[in-house]
């Protein structure tokens, strides 16, 4: 399992698959991907369900499911600590989990969160306090091949121009994150 931490936000990802799947969930032409997000306190609720669907759709866009038909891939994310930018941390954890498990992927992706404070300044990777005081919080999943947007979700209101600016900033940040992926994978496989 992989465990990326953004400052104090920590998410642990564990992946099983491609493995046998129960009859009803079986898809005849591709792998059935399931994402489970477990919060630290309490039982999973509606927020977790909606985030699971978001992560699932992002992962399905990159995983080459057609290579493993009639199988199931289960990705479990456990929140270890939450200090802001949780969704993008989950996205990063999911991607590293997929990468470490050796699943065939068409590209990698990374998650970046931007917050727009009341003055209009863009804050990348906001903390919980910055998120609460912000006018809008936007999270993007950016793919690695052409820096295109796989997923975008926003909370709050912002103008179209501001959203485009945040997106451009997120694409810049994605470069740093992908470099980090590359370095950590290189380090992992050079020592073993």
């Amino acid at each position, binding site marked *: 399992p992989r465990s990326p*931490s953004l400052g104090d936000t920590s998410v642990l990802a564990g992946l099983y698959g491609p*493995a046998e799947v129960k009859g009803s969930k079986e898809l005849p032409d591709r792998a059935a991907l399931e994402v489970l997000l*477990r919060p630290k*306190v*309490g039982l999973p609720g509606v927020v977790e369900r909606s985030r699971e669907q978001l992560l699932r759709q992002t992962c399905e866009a990159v995983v080459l499911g057609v290579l493993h038909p009639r199988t199931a891939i289960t990705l*479990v994310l*456990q929140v270890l600590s939450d200090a802001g930018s949780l969704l993008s941390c989950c996205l990063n954890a999911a991607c590293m989990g997929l990468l470490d498990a050796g699943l065939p992927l068409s590209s990698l992706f990374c998650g970046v969160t931007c917050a727009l404070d009341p003055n209009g300044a863009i804050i990348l990777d906001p903390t919980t306090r910055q998120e609460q005081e912000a006018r809008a919080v936007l999270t993007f999943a950016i793919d690695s091949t052409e820096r295109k947007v796989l997923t975008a979700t926003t909370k709050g209101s912002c103008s179209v*121009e501001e959203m485009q600016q945040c997106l451009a900033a997120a694409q810049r940040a994605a470069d*740093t994150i992908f470099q980090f992926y590359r370095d950590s994978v290189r380090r992992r496989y050079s*020592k073993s």
Partner: protein
Amino acid sequence: MKATPLSNCERRFLLRAIEERKRLDGRQCYDYRNVRISFGADYGCCIVELGKTRVLAQVSCELVPPKPNRPTEGILFFNLELSPMAAPGFEPGRQSELLVKLNRLIERCLRNSKCIDTESLCVVAGEKVWQIRLDLHLLNHDGNIIDAASIAGIVALCHFRRPDVSVQGEEVTVYTPEERDPVPLSIHHMPICVSFAFFQQGTYLLVDPSEREECVMDGVLVIAMNKHREICTIQSSGGIMLVTDQVLRCSKITAVKVAEITELIQKALENDQKVRKEGGKFGFAESIPNQKITAFKMESAAVDTNNVEEQAEEIITKADPPSEVFAKPILHTPGTAQIGEGIENSWGDLEESEREEAAEEEGESEATAFECQKMETEDTSTMRETKTDEPIVLSDSEEEEVVILEPQELPKKTRTQTNSKQENTSKKAFNKRRKKKRAAH
């Protein structure tokens, strides 16, 4: 996902090895695996690793009204979850026997032993008490979940700090962590579970079984004890029959193990306390990378966002303008609103054919009724013209006898469908029918 079952030759191998006093990982019969405790950034959060078995514990608190039969005691709530990432056989949402057994053990160990002083959790007797909630998540299953979980639970409870509260007469003030330092829970003693696995009808005994050993064991004996050598809970499951001196021997071993583990816990808590006081960095982000060779840390990096605005401008000018937005809703009567004006329906042909059929079957009145409808659908802002003297027949069915005697002005429609008016009237008719039924009852 299905768990892979244990093969017969593996089973035989394990049993033969145990008969020769050998274990797969080279431990002795009474040896524990390495226990490692690490703390998170929040108070009350810790991860305990017993060999490869990992449990995450988090304590949280909330002010709630107390239970009616215990007005001066706080409430404790324990929840152990077997995360699907722990083993391929664990599935979400299924209450397996193992889960129930583990939950009950944790409850008995921590609640019935009265290790936490619940009277001190009372704020206003009969009205507000603290509810302490302990969530345990199993992250990896390599045997002996109960020991790891009990250690994680008690460490998290010792580590937790609840907000400070002051009561002055009728007023209760809850201070935030910034105003006043949070207060630890009052814990009398630390009960810790130790498991013993029995093989070959109680002949061979192993402490801290690993996952493979658990698969082939006959039964397990769990003893929860604190460092004062008081047994808090004892449970034997699996149907093994034990002799008294075996049980006594196990309890002696437990006393030794518990003393060691309690010392370890104290040391870990002190370390964490020291680091926090000195202002050093703490939390999982710090503890996990230092221990694992596969982890990599990157300091926060600045991102160059100088040309962001220009890039964004370009994109916007190239993009299509958004379609027209209807911003203001139109209010007709209280309770109804319409956003935008409906477009002309494109089902005109269908209505024509309906009209023809209706005219053939029912006769003139029907046709006029439909005509009225057609006019209504095309024209959203003018009033409807009805023949108020004629009764309007709603449906073709001969069984229904509902007729609207006084067609009133209906609220303007909010949809662009052809039979919306019919639906409106049928809704009214339905209400009439319902009223009739109610009158009958």
